[in-house]
């Protein structure tokens, strides 16, 4: 038991795991609720033709254009404007899953600032690695907001 306590894994890792893990669970539950609401009628899709078009190999652009009442290709965070529909809620859930990892990395990075020893461990190598990963993630999320 003493050994178990002595080698407790680093806090930054545990924080990443908890934040991203819980956001993933919440996101999946929201997405499931959204799809159930969508199937029961409150949907932007004509599901019957969506299923047919998915199975016939139409790409995502055509599916969005042809099978939603919006009749347009949807990019970025479009779902925020239709959160009153099942598909809006489902996409919000999926977005929570996707961005849960980014939230986890932000918390991991922030937790590195709790001591100089951790922040500059091995000349700050792990801090630089965390910054690199986080920058890529944030750049992509920002790009999504431009669409």
């Amino acid at each position, binding site marked *: 038991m003493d*050994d*178990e306590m002595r*080698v407790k*894994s*680093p806090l*930054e*890792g*545990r924080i*990443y*795991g*908890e934040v*991203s*893990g*819980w956001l*993933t*669970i919440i996101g999946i539950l929201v*997405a499931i609720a959204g*799809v159930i609401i*969508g*199937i*029961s*009628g409150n*949907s*932007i*899709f*004509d*599901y*019957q033709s969506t*299923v047919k078009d*998915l*199975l016939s*190999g139409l*790409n*995502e652009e055509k*599916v*969005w254009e042809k099978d939603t*009442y919006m009749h347009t290709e*949807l*990019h970025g965070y479009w779902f925020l404007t239709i959160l009153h*529909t099942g598909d809006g809620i*489902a*996409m919000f859930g*999926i977005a929570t*899953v*996707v961005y849960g*990892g980014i939230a986890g*990395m932000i918390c991991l990075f922030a937790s590195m600032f709790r001591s100089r020893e951790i922040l500059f*461990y*091995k000349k700050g*190598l*792990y801090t630089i*690695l965390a910054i*690199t*990963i986080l920058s*890529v*993630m944030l750049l*992509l999320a920002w*790009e*999504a907001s431009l*669409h």
Partner: protein
Amino acid sequence: MQTLVVIPTTIKFFVEIFAFCFSIGFVAIIAGTGGGVLFTSFLLGFTSIHPDIVRATGLLSAVAGTRMGAQTYLRSIANIRIALFLAAPYTVFAVIGAYFGLYLTGHFGSYGVAILKLMLGLIVLFIGILYIFIKKTEYPESEGDRITQKLGLEIPYYEKSLDRVVEYKLKHAPLAFLICCGVGFISGTFGLGAGWAIGPTINLIMLAPLKVATTTSAVIISIGDTAAIVPYFISGSLIPIFAVPAVMGLMVGARIGARVAVRTKARYVRYILTLILLFAGIRLVWVGLWMMR
């Protein structure tokens, strides 16, 4: 706003996707791998669903499954330093791969899809053969090497079954770093996940204990594929009626499979998995070549 006229078709589709993905998650976890490889290769080889949609959903499944694992693993065994060290190249190249995959299908149309299927077929065949020959080692012996020791990657962990702290020394960190560049690219391009490569890399090349390798590989995939999925998310490749039952099925299948796994001879399941992969790989190559003609 349109409302549904025929609900049963949708529900049937939802249940079929769930059941299919449940079986994949169930078999894959018993064989000791993630479901990403099976999911993507099967759906691309045997259905007409567009590759962008399949790959995006494959990545979402990989992300969701590995994150749930990472939450538990990072409390004890998984090594966050190895994870950050290998997740950095994996992330960058997974994003490049994701854009490359979208470029192929977006700019070359059905020819791009054919190339994608052909390449995926060859990779799946390679993974199938890899499963035959890879022999994982529980506690590899290693003295470490100078460069790897300088990185300070090792974090000892408490092993309950031995009731002691396990310390280990790692080797070949630069080689593992390079391998993760390639694996990240493949994962992002094909939406495969990367459990088939990263676990063995940490275990057999860096010589980390098997438990550290498998748990840390889940953390790396959870970080890297988070970035890789964003381009697909932006481009609208995640369609709820397909993505949600697929992710649910894979996760529930993996969870139940994990319970069955302790009572099953994994070796035989691995042989079955290898056969399935070889079959799916040959089919993908054939479909790719046929489409190119």
